[in-house]
């Protein structure tokens, strides 16, 4: 195995209308077992994936949004959400799921996984990645 790589999962599509969000999440969960340096990016319509209050009973599909809350348990805790994408959609951090993780090195303190960043910062994170998975 080579040294650890920086994996970036880029999520740009809304949930339910297409399956890309769900199947991207399935990759992230499997990928968590491989001990790479994992980050998730939510931008453009991808920010809709992690909004609160999803209830899919009426459309007969499975609500997979609770699974995002389990990401912290898989040591997936670098979740970048783009400010400009939220703004364009009339959303704020309060509209998003409270995604957290427990920091082993800080007496298991619960910390926020989501970092809201600018498009310019997002661009840097993209460029500093070794592998970009696009869905």
């Amino acid at each position, binding site marked *: 195995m080579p040294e650890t790589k920086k994996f970036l999962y880029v999520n740009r599509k809304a949930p339910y209308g*297409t399956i890309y969000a769900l199947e991207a999440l399935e990759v992230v969960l499997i990928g968590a077992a491989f001990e790479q340096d994992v980050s998730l990016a939510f931008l453009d319509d991808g920010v809709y994936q992690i909004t609160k209050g999803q209830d899919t009973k009426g*459309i*007969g*599909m*499975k609500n997979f949004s609770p699974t995002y809350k389990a990401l912290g348990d898989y040591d997936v805790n670098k979740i970048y959400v783009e400010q400009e994408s939220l703004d364009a959609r009339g959303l704020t951090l309060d509209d998003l799921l409270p995604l957290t993780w427990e920091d082993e090195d800080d007496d298991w303190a619960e910390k926020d996984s989501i970092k809201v960043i600018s498009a310019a910062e997002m661009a840097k994170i993209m460029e500093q990645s070794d592998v970009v998975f696009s869905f």
Partner: protein
Amino acid sequence: MKFSVMISEGPYTHQASDTAYNFTKAALEDGHECFRIFFYHDGVNNGTRLASPPQDDRNIINRWSALAKEYALDLVLCVAAAQRRGIADADEAKRNGKNADNIAPGFRISGLGQLIEAGIQSDRLITFGD
């Protein structure tokens, strides 16, 4: 009123087949008639019996087959679209030299004329796609 429905995308990847199903079920329950459901483009992939979706998810193909049985629906897969994408009934498989078929119960394969006929014979035609 007499409806027909065209479905242009395959199961799971796009919501089109789900919305078409929920629409058609509601129309039938509200007393409307369904002349035909025509599957075109990737829509033909709704007609495979080889899918095994996760247990905790809906089974889109079986759902169509069951609705077809309950309401005697005419579920038609476009033959040209099905040939491109690998959906075949026993006849098609034989004709094209294939050693297996994969069509699901309640579906049949036929030509594009069936879509045109649906447009002519139905009071309303509605398309669900990407």
